[in-house]
């Protein structure tokens, strides 16, 4: 059953140095507040998993929290590069970053396999691509009925998955709606699940398009209002596109980046 904790307590209880951590949310509902708490608690040596690393992982990578990144598209959507990600990969700053790189279809299916507790998933993918040459988690299987060779991707089972949702009830049942991305799969694939929410309410009245994660599939819920900013929470906020554009110059330079993180993350909270 989910415990309702402060964000600080929840991160301290569920995230450990060296963990494989997935913070999911496909553009929508990205758990920035939790990521900032991870940075403040000085957790490091993380393997970070996310289809789209986005600014959230640019920040974690730039602060040296990650030793490895598992992903499928690492840009600043609609803006350009993730400069901290590039700097880590190209120059090893602040530390080298190992990569395991997939397509979106492959990553989505790795989470599906993880949520299903199967060791792998099958897709018609990667054909002719050089991607398999750089990954140990892409292989092939042959259909026992037709003989067709298909791609196999290894399940991903994070130690912890962190997601942001609109709300939870007092029992810790979690409700989210809008673009639901791959959050259910990422949460169910993990050993431990941390959900930040905009608010805790008495009752989760049904909402169109909503999914519910029952309390017994979640380990901790923490209230973090606007906890997805600069991403957004449908029904509570809109995407701060200005911030995503502003991130480009902030993140381009190491010192500017560090100063920004000091002012807005380390000394905040």
């Amino acid at each position, binding site marked *: 059953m989910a415990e309702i904790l402060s964000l600080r307590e929840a991160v301290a209880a569920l995230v450990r140095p060296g963990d494989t951590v997935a913070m999911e949310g*496909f*553009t*929508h509902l990205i758990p920035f507040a939790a990521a900032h708490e991870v940075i403040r608690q000085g957790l490091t040596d993380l393997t970070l998993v996310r*289809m*789209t690393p986005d600014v959230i992982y640019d920040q974690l990578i730039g602060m040296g929290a990650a030793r490895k990144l598992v*992903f*499928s*598209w*690492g*840009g600043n*959507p*609609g*803006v350009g*590069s*993730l400069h901290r*990600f*590039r700097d880590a*990969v*190209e*120059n090893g700053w602040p530390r080298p970053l190992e990569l395991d*790189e*997939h*397509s*979106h*279809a492959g990553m*989505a*299916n790795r*989470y*599906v396999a993880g949520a299903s507790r199967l060791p792998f998933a099958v*897709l*018609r*993918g*990667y*054909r*002719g*691509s*050089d*991607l398999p040459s750089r990954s140990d988690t892409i292989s092939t299987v042959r259909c026992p009925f037709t003989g*067709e*060779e298909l791609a196999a991707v290894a399940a991903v089972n994070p130690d912890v998955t962190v997601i942001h949702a609109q709300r939870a009830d007092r029992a810790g049942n979690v409700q989210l709606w*809008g*673009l*639901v*991305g*791959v959050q*259910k*799969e990422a949460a169910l694939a993990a050993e431990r699940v941390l959900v930040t929410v905009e608010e805790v309410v008495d009752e989760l009245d049904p909402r169109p*398009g909503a999914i519910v994660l029952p309390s017994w599939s979640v380990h901790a819920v923490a209230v973090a209002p606007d906890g997805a900013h600069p991403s*957004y929470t*449908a029904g509570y906020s*809109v*995407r701060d*596109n*200005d911030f*995503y*554009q502003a991130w480009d110059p902030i993140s381009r330079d190491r010192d500017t980046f560090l100063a920004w993180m000091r002012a807005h993350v380390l000394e905040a909270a």
Partner: protein
Amino acid sequence: MTWTSDELMTVNAARALAGARTCFVGIGLPSAAANLARRTIEPGLVLIYESGTLGSKPARLPLSIGDGELADTADAVVSVPEIFNYWLQAGRIDVGFLGAAQVDRYGNINTTVIDRGPGRPEGRLPGAGGAPEIAASCGKVLMVLRHSRRNLVERLDFVTTVGHGSGPGDRARLGLPGAGPVAVITDLGVLRPDPETAELVLTELHPGVTAEQAREATGWKLRVAPDPGVTRPPAPAELAALRELSDRGAADA
């Protein structure tokens, strides 16, 4: 009326969607083109974004593929695994519309890494995203990108996404169900695969552009169709629709 070369490119990219019923839309230039098509030549066009929206009808250009308006205006919102497995992989989508960092003469795409020469680390690009499976499974593929020797290259540093592989028959050999790239729309003109060789050939030039300019801006020895067409200038309605879309996007961003 005057227009920019980017506007020429986008208007022609939108026109290439005539007759399409469904389009899997990449962010950036493809999204601008697909949204323009829905406002001009193909009002019924169903826009599908990898964030899980089927039938998005945004009033402005989204900055990201996950802007709230894409979900709010959609006929249906599904999970990301579902959009890739049940809708894309299943072959339900007519056109995949992609941008690209590097494209070779067979329409193969690199969005992963750039070789910067001996002793220098690879340059990092964003990665594959949805492209490998979009290019594999959609009925056909359109690409839109700016014409330069950096973008249209002799040899890819990395094959992220297969277009026509190394020529005719390669898609079938690899088991790629869709027809692959049928047009690459740039700010100079339009390239289409030669039906015999699958090599991209310049078949159309935008008004005021010469074949020499296109050759100059291409990293391989570009073949030009015997009598390349000239694209129609943007109609006032096309330009107005494009500018309205962009202004709304810009005002909002």
